[in-house]
């Protein structure tokens, strides 16, 4: 198993979801999707735990992901939602990080995205989104 079910209470739904995603079989989307890689699942587990460890003390349950999604290339996406922005952190099949940030401002909705994101920048993005 790549994903342990043991962890902080706020992460139980996330860990349960990761275990569900780990069980996806080839072609789970009917369009030829690949099973999720253990590298992506493990990194998703690590990132979720790091965010809770870093920001859970001040933010409580808000530090927990809103949802976790599979990606057809074998990757995993973690979504956090904050007061005025949502962040999707995509973890590729090899563990690489990319993101989509959707911010709701006075001028309407703004999108920002990027690839090859260093882990510390990813954690900073999560903190910004959560408002911590």
């Amino acid at each position, binding site marked *: 198993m790549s994903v342990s079910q043991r962890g902080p209470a706020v992460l139980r739904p996330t860990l349960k979801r990761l275990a569900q995603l780990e069980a996806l079989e080839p072609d789970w*989307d009917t369009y030829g999707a690949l099973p999720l890689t253990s590298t992506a699942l493990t990194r998703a587990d690590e990132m979720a735990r790091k965010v809770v460890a870093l920001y859970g003390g001040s933010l409580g349950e808000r530090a927990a992901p809103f949802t976790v999604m599979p*990606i057809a290339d*074998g990757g995993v*996406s973690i979504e956090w939602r904050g007061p005025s922005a949502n962040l999707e952190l995509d973890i*590729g099949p090899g563990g690489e990080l*990319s993101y989509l940030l959707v911010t709701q401002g006075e001028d309407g909705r703004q999108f920002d995205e990027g690839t090859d994101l260093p882990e510390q920048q990813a954690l900073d993005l999560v903190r910004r989104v959560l408002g911590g």
Partner: protein
Amino acid sequence: MAGELPPWPEETIKDEDWLYRRLPPIFVKPDGSISDKLFMRNSEANRNKKEPDPDISVDWDRYATPAQSLEIAGRPAHGICGLQARFPRDLDLTVVHTPDRERDNRAHASIRGNEGPGAKQRCFLLAEEAGKNVLIRPTSPT
């Protein structure tokens, strides 16, 4: 044998025509919205890129109903959502008829060109629009 049959002609898809995409239950978020990962496909051509798939498979409503588009995959628990062709075209994507004789799917069509800067944003917008047009709801949580 299907391989010996002549190919179907590639026809023009009008802006107002509907395109159907199968919706795995796992892509429905806790709030009922649709994940943009529905449009981040795997493909051989995209295997090593870190961006959405530039060629998204859909079915054209001229040759398939939502029920038929679902039936072809043999996953009755999945759903079907729809987009009118003008929506991806307004995002500067291309919509073309790509009939698939090998899989006996004359309705097959492709949304092409979602690569480079803004690709994730376009996936988001496609999913948001498709979420307004869930024609057959997924019926199981997995």
